[in-house]
């Protein structure tokens, strides 16, 4: 079984490019060029230089001693929260802004849920002096106010998405509509491993720096490159894709995904796509998505804006369907509790998205000798108000 994308843009039966003709020239231009550009020595050099000097990579692989004691396993945290802008999202935006420049684009659009991708996009646009417009659901604008302010300070225009559930799905719709209306000068920096081919593959490859580093860092610390498990939360699945990438073909490494169960998988307020989803088409790709039996996309719910998405990237649908990945989901309450636990055991305040990955210990028991690497995808500064409200701090 292969877990890599095939030459038609599919992972197993998932992926492809189901796009209106209006988007074809842009997506096709990208498809024809992305691999060539990504493998150019000058591109690689610029990408890695920026990751090092600007983002602050490599991000530490930190042995979490007290968390390990508590949960009786050897737990390492991959500290994406220490990246510039506070999450893994910037790995992708650095890559895509360099891609956009090489494609001769001078206007950038993006969607954002938690605002982390929006901030990471606004940041690289400021860095390169390129115009930036970020679409964000009206609800998310309210619940992620600090990130809205950051985007504005960085010179981006934040446009509210007012349709549908007014969250990430709708922001993505608006960004796609913008791209249809601006077909020549604009590059769309998608923020997760979703969208029409080649986006899921391109985003995965930019994020794969995470597992590339885990391998040599673990070798230094444990004398071997491969952990027993890698764990990540899944919204669209970019931090997860990056965390899994270099372990996909090694079946000795367990792949664990944690989705957002919201108020409970069957509460009607959930974003646990693999459990609730059926194969269909969302935002240009064939994948698992939450929908009615009539094929209307369902409004998801999660306390975390970054996981509040009714689909999941096609790689993850493939990992789920093929059985390569173990999929779990954590409720709002489990995530918040796990987030607070990390604060108190390790002195790290995680993003609420990330807190879902940390809630894995509610669902799975590891062996004491198991090496478990968790993607600490982002820091919780943006979520302080939510933590304050939830814990009445």
């Amino acid at each position, binding site marked *: 079984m292969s877990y890599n994308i095939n030459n038609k843009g599919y992972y197993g039966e998932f992926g492809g490019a189901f796009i209106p003709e209006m988007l074809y020239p842009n997506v096709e231009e990208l498809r024809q060029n992305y691999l060539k550009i990504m493998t150019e020595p000058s591109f690689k050099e610029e990408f890695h230089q920026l990751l090092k000097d600007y983002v602050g990579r490599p991000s530490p692989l930190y042995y979490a001693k007290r968390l390990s004691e508590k949960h009786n396993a050897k737990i390492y945290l991959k500290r994406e929260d220490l990246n510039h802008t506070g999450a893994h999202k910037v790995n992708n935006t650095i890559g895509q802004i360099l891609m956009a420049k090489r494609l001769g684009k001078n206007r950038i659009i993006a969607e954002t849920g938690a605002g982390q991708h929006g901030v990471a996009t606004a940041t690289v646009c400021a860095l390169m002096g390129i115009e930036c417009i970020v679409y964000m659901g009206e609800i998310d604008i309210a619940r992620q106010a600090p990130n809205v302010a950051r985007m504005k300070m960085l010179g981006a225009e934040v446009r509210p998405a007012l349709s549908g559930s007014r969250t990430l799905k709708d922001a993505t*719709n608006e960004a796609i509509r913008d791209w249809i209306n601006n077909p020549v000068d604009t590059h769309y920096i998608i923020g997760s491993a979703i969208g029409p081919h080649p986006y899921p593959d391109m985003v995965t490859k930019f994020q794969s720096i995470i597992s590339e580093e885990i391998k040599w860092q673990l070798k230094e610390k444990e004398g071997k490159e491969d952990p027993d498990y890698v764990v990540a939360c899944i919204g669209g699945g970019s931090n997860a894709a990056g965390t899994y990438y270099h372990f996909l073909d090694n079946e000795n490494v367990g792949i664990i995904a944690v989705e957002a169960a919201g108020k409970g998988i069957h509460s009607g307020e959930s974003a646990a796509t693999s459990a609730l989803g059926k194969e269909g088409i969302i935002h240009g790709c064939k994948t698992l998505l939450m929908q009615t039996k009539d*094929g209307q996309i369902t409004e998801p719910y999660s306390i975390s804006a970054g996981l509040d998405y009714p689909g999941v990237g096609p790689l993850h649908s493939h990992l789920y369907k093929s059985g390569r990945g173990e999929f779990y989901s954590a409720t709002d309450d489990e995530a918040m509790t796990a987030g607070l636990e990390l604060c108190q055991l390790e002195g790290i305040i995680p993003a609420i998205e990330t807190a879902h990955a940390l809630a894995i210990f509610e669902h799975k028991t590891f062996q004491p000798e198991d090496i478990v690497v968790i993607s600490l995808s982002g820091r919780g500064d943006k979520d302080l108000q939510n933590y304050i409200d939830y814990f009445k701090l």
Partner: protein
Amino acid sequence: MNRIIQKLKEDNLPDGKTGKLLSIYFTAGYPNIDDTVTIIQNLEKSGVDMIEIGLPFSDPLADGPTIQASSTAALKNGMTTELLFEQLKDIRQTVSIPLIIMGYFNPILQYGVEEFCKKCKETGIDGLIIPDLPVDVYHSEYKETFEKYGLINVFLITPQTSDERIRYIDSVSDGFIYMVSSASTTGAKTGFGDTQTEYFERIANMNLKNPQIVGFGISNNETFTQATKYAKGAIIGSAFIKHLTNNGAETIASFVNPIIATEN
């Protein structure tokens, strides 16, 4: 013969019209859930040549605010694929112009592509427009099924579509080509400038095997006349939805008459 093909062949109409076709789009289930049949009948009576029945979708990526809002309202009203077919089951007893269903791919996929096509044939639907079903996927996976049920699938081209791809789309098409007037979602722009005229001319000069029908940005007599100067016909969507919003399903002639006025 498929009604679309027949309609496209009628160059010299008995009523002395120019043979330029007016096609009207509306969203099924809007403004009221039961308006579908009334709207179709009134459109035919008003002299419209072809109708696109919009199957509403929760996330219509290629549509602007007007059609989005009508889709949201239609879904709220309770429109479903099943209900639409139910409403249309006797439509061929009263209506004879070509009927096309326009909808996004996911609802059709969930219904079952073959089942959907079969139902279209039983109902008397002549063609489909599925903006997010790319031509190559159609060609390799679904063409046979569509043809088995006598359905014509219509593809879009835009000002950015390369000549090579237009030729490919022309070769796969069997009916007409839906020519999107400018790079935009539906309803975004009104009026045509030099860029559009140039594009219309360029396509006209390609001598494609399929006639072209222009859509997006047509709202009145002036834009209809401009668009059909080069193309076989034109499609009006958002402007008609706005008319329905303001006037309901009964007064359709007052919208259609001025648009086709100079044709007579």
